[in-house]
């Protein structure tokens, strides 16, 4: 009743004669919605990608191999240097050891002078092979 009064429609008998107000599409309809795939078919081919990546990987592996060769030479150099120095160090240690052992034997002779049947510096093993002392260093110099 109120709508009829507000709009001043002529010939309006009831509410049912009012023009329909609803949300609807614009005239001509909505524009179409794209839902189809659009993946471009351009760019490198599969073969090109495979070739390029194998080139890159191959180059990388070659570089790894070169690096390993270089590291091998470095290791060999280090080993050679240690081989050159080893005899000096061993010789010095031998001389020191013999000095200390002599002192030790003299001590032992002094201590065991009155014990019958004691051989100073007797080998505790039955074989003639040289065995390093098993009870730690012989009076290591501090």
């Amino acid at each position, binding site marked *: 009743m109120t709508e009829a009064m507000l709009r001043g429609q002529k010939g309006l008998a009831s509410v049912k004669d009012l023009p329909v107000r609803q949300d609807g599409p614009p005239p001509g309809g909505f524009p179409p919605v794209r839902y189809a795939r659009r993946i471009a078919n351009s760019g490198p081919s599969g073969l090109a990608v495979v070739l390029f990546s194998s080139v890159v990987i191959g180059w990388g592996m070659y570089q790894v191999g070169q690096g390993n060769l270089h590291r091998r030479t*470095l290791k060999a*150099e*280090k080993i*050679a*240097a*240690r*081989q*050159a*120095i*080893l*005899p*000096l160090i*061993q*010789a*010095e*240690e*031998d*001389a020191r*050891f*013999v000095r200390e*052992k002599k002192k030790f034997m003299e001590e032992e002779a002094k201590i065991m002078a009155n014990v019958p049947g004691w051989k100073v510096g007797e080998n505790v093993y039955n074989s003639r092979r*040289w065995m390093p002392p098993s009870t730690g260093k012989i009076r290591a110099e501090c």
Partner: protein
Amino acid sequence: MGVEETSPLQERPAPITTSAVLMAASKHIASKCGAQNRAFLDCKRNDPDPERCLRQGQDVTGCVISLLKELNNKCPKAMDAYSKCMDYWTNEFELCRKEQQEFEEACPL
């Protein structure tokens, strides 16, 4: 290289044999004292008893010490620089290539 002579009155002694000095001179030791090293190692392989190889050991020690003394008198600065570099980089050869080259130019193998 600069002038590296010693004055005739003062001969430098052999440097104190730290690991850096020995590693620095290792190539010289290998080439100049190789025979003594080999003799000592052969003696050791035969009999590891220290008392058996004292003479060869003395040969080795004498050769190396006199070699170090000679290097110290011929090219003291280069040897000192190389030893210090080795000392700093804990005997890594690859990190001291420049000093090694200068040392081997001043005192050839």
